[in-house]
């Protein structure tokens, strides 16, 4: 085979390797399994899977974030807040974690607020 052909084969193999390497997690791994469970409303199972991820990968932003969502679903507000904060500590610029965290804080907002509605509608008679 010529040098060009060998180079071509090498490049193709490299590309295939990169494709698999860059690919998202297969459902068989714990993060994906947790999402599979969450999609079926099996939140206790999802929590178990994501906690398992953290025992092996404590710096997993996905596991911290997803665990926080699961805790919100179960009304465990402080646990949810801690997991979001852990995720943001690891990845402060993650837009999805930030969005989730802001939504949680909006739900837990301080009591002092004004609900005002100036309807000004005329009553039709």
């Amino acid at each position, binding site marked *: 085979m010529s040098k*060009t052909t060998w*180079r*071509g084969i090498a*490049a*193709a193999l*490299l*590309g*295939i390797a*990169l*494709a*698999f*390497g*860059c*690919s*998202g*997690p297969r459902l068989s791994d714990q*993060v*994906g399994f947790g*999402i599979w469970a*969450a*999609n079926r409303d099996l939140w206790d199972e999802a929590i178990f899977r994501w906690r398992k991820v953290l025992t092996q990968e404590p710096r997993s*932003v*996905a596991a911290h*974030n*997803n665990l926080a*969502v699961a805790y*919100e*679903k179960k*009304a465990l*507000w402080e646990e949810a807040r801690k997991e979001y904060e852990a995720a943001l500590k690891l990845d402060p610029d*993650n837009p*999805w*974690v930030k*969005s*989730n965290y802001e*939504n949680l804080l909006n*739900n*837990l907002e301080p*009591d*002092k*607020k*004004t*609900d*005002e*509605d*100036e*309807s*000004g*509608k*005329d*009553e*039709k*008679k």
Partner: protein
Amino acid sequence: MKRNSLSLLLLLLLLMGCGRDLYRKVRLELPAYSPLHPDEFQEVFLTDFLIAKTPEGFDLNRELAAFFVPEIERRLGLPVNAQRIPLENEASIGKPDFWQALSPGPLRRLYVTGKAELTRKIRKSILGEVPGEDPFTPQRKVAERTVFSLSLHLFLIQGDNGTVLLDRNFKESKTYTSPEQRTDFAFYDLAQRIKTKLFRLISNEERIQERYLLLK
């Protein structure tokens, strides 16, 4: 040419592999956070509200009690004591000692209190121009509207330690075409709106919200 094709193939494979989504957007029914846990209380007391303003002849305190007592009983499942407790001034609301002194017994009490104001105003609206006696000089047609506004600064206070569980301002307004609109009917309309917002706030009803699950 061959080199370019190989480069393109490599780039394509790279994009296929690395172009996957990193997140999944989901819509979930999440329970709402409520500062109030009704199962921690045995009874509710409604105090007199501090009234800033009310139309002449309308007992705003009596009407607030008549409206909210059955609603609180129904929504929280707690008995509401009809004994009205006078509130001397605004400073009392923020004093834990004041509420603790009112709660000597073993039963855990929740106090509903605050400030209220009901106003009635007449507004004139210009509806347009109509021919007058002089056809060359149009006159403005003016209509009167009655505007009622109900402001309620509501506090929910835990009796045994004086902790303020909820501190919220509500304000609702409505305009009526009739200048003779009755105050009690208008109060009912406005109180209904406040009631809806209040109980949405203190109940744990689930609401649909969006969240992002990360895939890696």
